[in-house]
């Protein structure tokens, strides 16, 4: 009964109701799009960071992350990798070997970070081939070729086809040294690491550093970012005692903390949006109630209880909120979908941690809608309580004399 009356009241004053509904719709849509946008950029940055190079989960010998050493290696990595790949939710894994060395091309020399990769597995995990901007990528079987990061190639004044000598210490204490052919240039998207990194076939690196059948790191790519934590625990169970699985939140700790801070910042912005919505709702509801004081007086006079009036006013607001949210979903979905597909090109590409970003995209997931919906309903309820009480407490005799 009361809901029916409330609905009729909503439609009786079309213009005023529309105004309230529009405020709610606008607030909802704004909040939804901004959440979707925030999620999108957040996920995008993480994806760029993890899928591009780091992986979502990494496996090392215990203590490797604190102090990287040539000797902290993973043995039987092929077996361990196969076991990890069999876990549900894991898309790919890639073994890596890291070692420092001195590379020289003719008279130019530079310190380098040698990264040994398995081309096939690395490609499946981090789309390695796409990062080779010039020349050929690493062949399936080792051919003593290397790829240089772009910055490194520039510093060594090296070009494709030059031969490059690496000198370093091998794991057996001998002097690691060999000649390689530069077959390509890599632009990983991380200009900092491109200054230092040299890629070679894992088998070549194992021979150079005398680390047969051993690697330093396994990078694991998972299907959903949200599954990283449970999967890390699952992988840990598959590992021998001396190996540790860490999620990107641990091995890229500073990055994770920065992202968390950024996310908190976006929630503050969301709070501001919701405050604006709340003030708008309060304004229209209060206006509605004040304008209709005579009406409430009449209702009271014919025997409506104050509680019924409170319920009626609240139902009115709720009805408008539902209509506003329904409309807002349509608008927000349309906008977010556009941002999801097209993205917004950055006027100036910005770099974060050396990774360059040119486009930003939105992301759609259920909480994009239910969080602002809940917020709008709750604020509407809270702010309508006060006017509703005002409405219920009118003195009939006084307000009916108003005209």
């Amino acid at each position, binding site marked *: 009964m009361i809901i029916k009356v409330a609905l009729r009241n909503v439609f009786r004053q079309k213009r005023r109701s529309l105004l309230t509904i529009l405020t709610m719709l606008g607030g909802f849509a704004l909040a939804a799009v901004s959440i979707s946008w925030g999620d999108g950029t957040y996920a995008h940055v993480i994806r760029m960071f993890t899928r591009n190079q780091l992986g979502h989960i990494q496996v090392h010998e215990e203590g490797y992350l604190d102090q990287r050493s040539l000797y902290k290696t993973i043995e039987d990595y092929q077996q361990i990798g196969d076991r990890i790949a069999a876990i549900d939710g894991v898309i790919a894994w890639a073994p890596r070997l890291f070692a420092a060395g001195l590379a020289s091309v003719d008279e130019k020399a530079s310190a380098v970070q040698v990264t040994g990769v398995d081309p096939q597995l690395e490609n499946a995990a981090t789309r390695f081939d796409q990062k080779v901007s010039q020349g050929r990528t690493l062949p399936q079987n080792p051919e003593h070729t290397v790829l240089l990061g772009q910055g490194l190639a520039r510093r060594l004044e090296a070009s494709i086809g030059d031969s490059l*000598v690496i*000198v370093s*210490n091998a794991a*057996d*204490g*001998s*002097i690691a*040294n060999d000649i390689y052919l530069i077959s390509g240039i890599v632009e990983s998207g991380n200009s900092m690491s491109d200054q230092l990194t040299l890629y070679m076939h894992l088998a070549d690196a194992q021979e150079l550093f005398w680390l047969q059948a051993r690697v330093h790191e396994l990078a694991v790519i998972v299907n959903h970012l949200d599954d990283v934590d449970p999967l890390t625990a699952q992988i840990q169970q598959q590992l021998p005692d001396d190996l540790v699985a860490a999620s990107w939140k641990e091995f890229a700790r500073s990055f994770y903390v920065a992202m968390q801070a950024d996310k908190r910042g976006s929630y503050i912005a969301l709070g501001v949006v919701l405050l604006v919505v709340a003030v708008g709702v309060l304004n229209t509801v209060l206006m509605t109630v004040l304008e209709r004081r005579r009406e409430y007086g009449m209702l009271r006079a014919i025997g409506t209880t104050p509680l019924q009036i409170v319920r009626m006013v609240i139902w009115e607001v709720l009805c408008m909120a539902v209509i506003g949210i329904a409309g807002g979903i349509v608008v927000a979905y349309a906008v977010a979908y556009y941002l999801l597909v097209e993205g917004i090109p950055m006027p100036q590409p910005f770099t974060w941690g050396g990774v360059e970003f040119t486009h930003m995209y939105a992301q759609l997931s259920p909480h994009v809608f239910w969080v602002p919906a809940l917020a709008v309903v709750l604020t509407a309820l809270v702010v309508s309580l006060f006017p509703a009480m005002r409405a219920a407490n009118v003195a009939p005799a006084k307000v009916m004399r108003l005209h």
Partner: protein
Amino acid sequence: MRAIVIIFICLVLAPTVGAQTADSTLSDIIDKVDKLYRSESSHGTMEMEIVTQHWQRTLTMEVWTSGLEKTLVRIHEPKKEEGVGTLRLEDQMWNYLPKTNKVIKIPPSMMMSSWMGSDFTNDDLVKEFSLFEDYTSSWADVKDPSDTLYYIQLTPRPDLPIVWGKIIITARQSDYLPVTQEYYDEKGRLMRVMTYSDIQMMDDRRIPTTMTMVPQDEEGNKTILRYEQIEFNVDLPGDLFSLRNLRSYP
């Protein structure tokens, strides 16, 4: 008349000779240790066994020396490192890597770094300081001295770039052959201990043919250097100690 002169000389000089016996024993030992492996020139083959907690490998190498200034080392085994050489002329030093045909000069900052992963430093090969000339020696006070050994403390002359604070040499009283050398840093901490063993006749002299270097700051590490054969005072071709020869292998 002649007899009088002789008696006179004996009378005057005898007390001094007696007083110097302890000191002359000291310098005799130093001299012996100093010249033990030294000659105008030498040519020998050695085996170097390097043990660390991570790996272990054995090098077979040929070594030529000329005086104190020139050394050439050529590794023959293992196969992977065949032909790798080190040349030292005065205080300069180069490594040659045949695989990449590269000669690398060892910069001064790398002098205290390990030679070929062993517990001997590049400096050990280069700055073959004379114990006799570059250190001042004295009898060392040690706890629980053995009756059959001498203990000698060597302190580097302050004007020389020697990294050790002191070296304590233990030598046998019977033939002055060294038993251990303990290297201390400037703060008096024991850094490494070299032990001599396997005394054998090699060419014209009796020498300890095995030297074991044990660094004190890295657990599980040691390097054992064994002379397989050595000849002293041999004729060596004049251009042996040259960069050109370092490069030409085989």
